[in-house]
């Protein structure tokens, strides 16, 4: 029993960790672009991302379900009901949250770091990399918050993973299953365990994020 719980917890951390890494890999460059470049529709894009922070997880799950399904456009990849499908779905889900936080962090530092570097004659690329370096703790913090959102969500994991035992069963889908079995006690202890994980992540993020 305990072995299975640990296995599920580990899978949750790996899957959602991959999601956070993916989302960071495209979310940070995007945020940087939004901070350092001025172009038409920038405000609009930002507003869209802010609105999407609250997107229902099942909506993301549903859209990707249609794409990954055997009869969908990417059906040939046989991604549906695999751990990778969950990671991709969660990465999409948490991108708006990550971009919102990262944008805020970068924007705040921009006045001091980026503009100073530019005024000292740095190239745009050099100024940008300085800006990123200066903001790393806060960006890491954004990734960790996004990870917490990923590991705690149910809709994507259920729709794209299918809660298959020993393969795509993660903490949240396991909790939902125990509830549906009428095993409320076990569901509650799994829930407590999930809280412990997210709390630890938050504590870590507090340490690396400094005062924020």
């Amino acid at each position, binding site marked *: 029993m305990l072995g299975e719980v640990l296995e599920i917890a580990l899978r949750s951390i790996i899957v959602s960790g991959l999601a956070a890494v993916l989302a960071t890999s495209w979310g940070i460059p995007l945020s940087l672009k939004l901070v350092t470049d001025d172009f038409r529709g920038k405000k609009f894009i930002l507003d869209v991302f802010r609105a999407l922070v609250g997107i229902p997880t099942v909506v993301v799950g549903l859209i990707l379900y249609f794409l990954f399904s*055997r009869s969908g456009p990417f059906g040939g990849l046989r991604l549906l009901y695999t751990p990778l499908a969950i990671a991709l779905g969660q990465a999409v889900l948490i991108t708006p949250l990550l971009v919102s936080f990262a944008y805020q962090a970068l924007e705040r530092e921009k006045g001091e770091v980026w503009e100073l570097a530019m005024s000292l004659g740095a190239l745009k690329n050099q100024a940008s990399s300085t800006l990123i370096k200066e903001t790393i703790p806060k960006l890491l913090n954004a990734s960790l918050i996004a990870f917490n959102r990923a590991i705690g969500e149910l809709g994507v994991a259920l*729709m794209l993973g299918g*809660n*298959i035992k020993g393969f795509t069963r993660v903490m949240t889908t396991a909790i939902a299953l125990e509830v*549906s079995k009428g095993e409320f006690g076990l569901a509650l202890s799994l829930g407590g365990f999930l809280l412990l994980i997210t709390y630890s992540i938050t504590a870590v993020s507090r340490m690396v994020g400094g005062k924020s």
Partner: protein
Amino acid sequence: MRGHLLTLALVLGLISATYIWQVTRAPVTLRVSTTTSLYATDLLEELARKFQEKHPKVIIEFTPVGSGEALKKAENGDVDMVFVHAPNLEKKYLEKGVLKFGEIFAYNTFVILGPKDDPAGIRDMDPINAMIAIYEAGEAGTTKFVSRGDNSGTHNRELWLWNLAGLDPSGNDWYIESGTGMAQTLMIANEYGAYTISDIGTYLKLSSELTYLTPLVTQGSELLNVYSVYVVNSDVIKGVNERLAYEFQQFVLSDEIQNFIGNYGVVEFGSSLFSPANGDPDGSLREAWNQLAGG
């Protein structure tokens, strides 16, 4: 300070307004937990609508969950009545005194579904031999089987069939425990090209989406699917509306509604999704129920 008081007043006002709205919304609320397979066909919503035509003040709230959870909700006093199809579980809760007035109101069948090319060769076999053939094909690595794995009525039936076949598939690579509802389990089987067991109603409702699956075994007394309706016992579970639950139960068992159930789905699917129990005149349904509950 004044600002804080104002905020506090606003919050308290909102909470009480919401609460008042909730409690006055429905003069009488009947809370019903039901197996997903029954709810997914929209039959219960139809029955509720018909009941409300006669009792306009009653609001019926359905919680569609697996039979395991449906019964647990009854025990916790969260519902007034249950619609389920897991005789072995029902029996446990009857013995605990949680449920009373058990009545079989409808039945249909479970079907064993699989990929169209049928690698295990089970087409038109009897259910037990079909399970054996699936097991052997699974061991040989030519097929997979998707189990609900969620203590639902369908899952209990599947385990019962394995048991009758004298096999235990759990832990094998080819035995996939989906841990999800019937609809999603069917979709997983469809996606994997695997075998699975479903109630006929959910399958028919979804069949247009399940392009890779086909019903292979549909005959056999072991596949009889018996739906029962229970009233939660107010002597044991406090705060449940036993009287109203009983009234709705009797309504479901009435000739008019039994007739309606027998015709439900004919227009949409070409055949009815359920057969009405019609009071189980020859006792065969109760006999089957006893067999399933004891096994």
